[in-house]
């Protein structure tokens, strides 16, 4: 039972990592690449780390991994949002200067 849940979460996470990497390679512009990288950052990393928690059992190491999961959940969409907003504002400024 434990190994079944381990397989499901691990391969789900690796599938999301593969899909996010494919999107980063093939999508045409910055915003769609940011969308695909957010998939890779949140769902892929969180599912894979949950599978490592199931592999380990309940321990002090599991508590540390849960802290890393909460930190990734907070910071990684924030970083993608700030990068995309910086790019958008820079683009708007250059457009106004041209006019």
């Amino acid at each position, binding site marked *: 039972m434990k190994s079944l849940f381990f397989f499901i979460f691990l391969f789900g996470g690796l599938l999301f990592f593969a899909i996010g990497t494919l999107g*980063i390679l093939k999508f045409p512009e910055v915003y769609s690449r940011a969308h695909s990288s957010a998939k890779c950052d949140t769902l892929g990393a969180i599912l*894979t780390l949950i599978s490592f928690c199931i592999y380990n059992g309940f321990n002090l190491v599991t508590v540390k991994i849960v802290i890393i999961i909460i930190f990734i959940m907070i910071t990684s969409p924030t970083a993608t949002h700030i*990068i995309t907003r*910086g*790019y958008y504002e820079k683009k708007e400024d250059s457009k106004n200067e041209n006019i």
Partner: protein
Amino acid sequence: MINFLKFSVIFLSVTVFFCMYRSIKGPTIADRIISINVINTKIITIIIAVSFIYHETYFIDVALVYALIGFTASILISKVIKES
């Protein structure tokens, strides 16, 4: 079960190389920082998998510090983009 951990490390390393292609070739600077941010998340996962393969628990602290430093770096570089 440890063979699946080794497989996940190799798979994530291959996807890191694909992201590195985008970060070298990418037309704008935002593409490069987005792909480097993804590489950062993948390396955190790789460090934790390697810590389970080698049975060394102190690698988890390394992964925690790596996550903190990566977040700070991407925030600072995005501020540099906005002001340039």
